[in-house]
């Protein structure tokens, strides 16, 4: 469906989670290129390079050392060049407060990290599908909210 591989970026300090994430994407049918940032600081350093290749979807863990996911989200939304990146929060927290706060701050997707690998694959599939529809079918990205 996509000629070029979709560029995915995950910012998560947990090694195991990055591994699950990578494995899950490898098993998904859609062609993707997955890259990682190890914490919020590194993520922002990468994104703010003038020639950085911006991801199609940014997966953002909330609980990260140095710079939390929420701080990254706020910075990204205030940056003219970055603010249109589709952002998926990828967190252990299922707190309604966190969900609402991040949506209000401009996140498009909120994913509670599942505790089953198959669930993770399903979720990633759905995110990619819905995202692709939003990218290609003239949907209003301002209304793009998805909670999984």
């Amino acid at each position, binding site marked *: 469906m996509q000629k070029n591989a979709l560029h995915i970026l995950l910012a998560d300090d*947990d090694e*195991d*989670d990055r591994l*699950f994430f990578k*494995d899950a994407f490898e098993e998904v049918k859609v062609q993707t290129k997955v890259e990682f940032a190890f914490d919020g600081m590194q993520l922002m350093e990468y994104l703010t390079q003038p020639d950085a290749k911006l991801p199609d979807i940014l997966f953002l863990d909330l609980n990260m050392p140095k710079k939390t996911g929420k701080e990254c989200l706020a910075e990204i939304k205030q940056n003219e060049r970055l603010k249109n990146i589709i952002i998926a929060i990828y967190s*252990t*927290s*299922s*707190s*309604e*407060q966190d969900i609402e706060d991040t949506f209000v701050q401009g996140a498009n997707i909120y994913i509670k*990290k*599942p*505790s*089953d*690998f*198959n669930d*993770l694959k399903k979720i990633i599939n759905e995110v990619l599908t819905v995202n692709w529809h939003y990218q290609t079918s003239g949907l209003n990205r301002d209304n793009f909210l998805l909670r999984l």
Partner: protein
Amino acid sequence: MKWIPKFNSSNSLRVIFVIAIFILLFLSSIAYKHNRDLNESSKLLMHNYEINIQLERLMSAIKDAETGQRGYIITRNSRFLSPYLFSRDKVNTSFIALRKLTADNPKQQQNLQRLFKLIILRFASFENCLKYSEPATYDKRKLDNHMFGGRILMENIRFQVDEMNDIEKKYLQKRLKIYDQETSLGPVFSISLFLAAMTFILLAYRQISKDIVRLKIYNRRLLISSGLMAESEKIGKFSTWQWDLETDKIIYSDNQFRLLGYEPGAFVPTKETFLEFVHADDKAMIEKSMEGIVNHKSLPFVYYKIVRPDHQIRYLKSTGKLLVDRNGSKILLGINFDITDEHLLNIELQERNSELEKSNKELASFNHVASHDLQEPLRKIQTFISRVSDADKAVMSESGKNYISKIEISAKRMRVLIDDLLLFSRTNTTKKEFIKSSLTELFENAQLELNEAIEEKKAVIITTKLPKLHVIPYQIEQLFINLIGNSLKYSQNDIAPKIVIECDKIHSTLYPELLDQSVKKFYKITFSDNGMGFDPQFKETIFILFQRLHSKTEYPGTGIGLAICKKIVDNHKGYIIADSTPNKGSVFTIFLPE
């Protein structure tokens, strides 16, 4: 002001007294006039009497002269002549006296003049009689003539005297008549006037004595209340002061002195004295607010510290008001409260409160972090297991597979526990924002949340219109989710669950033992199901954290769900009760204040 009794008699009393005084003045003036009239009359009487006497004297002197002359003529004894000789003098003195006495009466003077002429003629006739009776010059005819002429003269004189007496008498009578007239009008009039005055005075006396009784009563009350005031100032730790702006005089109540650490009346307060007690920190503020009272006519509560002579610091709260009395004089009334005890207690309470808050926060964050951080490794365990079971189960031994599945079940149970704990801690810690929300909408959201389970169990939910209340929306939604979830979970195996929701607005007096009676109206929402129910003896224990009625293998669950329900209802100052008939169903009833 209401509490001052009205003695309106003072004005009428004044009027009564003025009238009485006028009557008395009038009466005394009448008496005075009477007295004077009487005096005058008696003088007149005396005058009359004197004239009378002098006339009589005059007459008797002439008669004496006549008698003497006769005796002499008969006897020729010159001894008889002496009365005649004296009589002339006597007549003269009487005449002079009469002249004086009748000086104010021209008519009497005329009469007197005539009388005088007659008397002179009489004496002339006496002389002639004597002359013609003297043997030497005796002439019988002439003597007879003169004797007879004397006789006529005498008659004339008597007549004249009588006339004068008459005039005087008439005059006297006239005077007495006038006097009588004047005085005869007096007695009845003055007695009635006197009685009137008496009545007025008696009335006044009655009023006065009545007022005195009232005054006594009020005075006693005043004494009691001022005593009470002083006592209550002492007990209530407050004091009052008055500042007469006109005279600049300041009066402290007894307790004001005590508040400042002195005996009552220990010094004469002035405007400056009070400021001396005020703590240096608050001086400027108090000075400003004192000016403020004069300008704004009242003083909002000010809080400040004072320092007593023994260096003890007291906390005061003061207020004041500018009063203007009927005469327009301005009096500043102030009240000071000694709030030191409350203040210190407050500080202590605040400290304890913040301590409690801190420990509460710590506990909450511990709870949150514990369950939150526990999730991470658990999730990884579960994810790794899911990976194992996918790829490697085929090559595993039976017991290995068994162990893996046991680990999986335990991990799942731990997950449910942690999730519920998180939920429970969240009902405590997240900010409690009360928003007016439609419970119907929240109920629909809850139903959406449970959609899968409802469809899977083919459950029927019969709902009703629910009110709009000030609630914490997500908590009420959670409450509904838990209650419906409970009914779905503990349904009977072969019967499709049926949950009926009913709602009523009730008066708190209907449940006097359960509901807070200070809140009048409650919404009573009942959730009835046809599930397996429970033994009613557990109807209270099921709301306790970790309390379970079923074994873990029979029904999954943590025993937190209903504890969360109770917590949520508590947060809303409501109540939750449960009842059940085993194998028939359960009823959960929540009461939410209107």
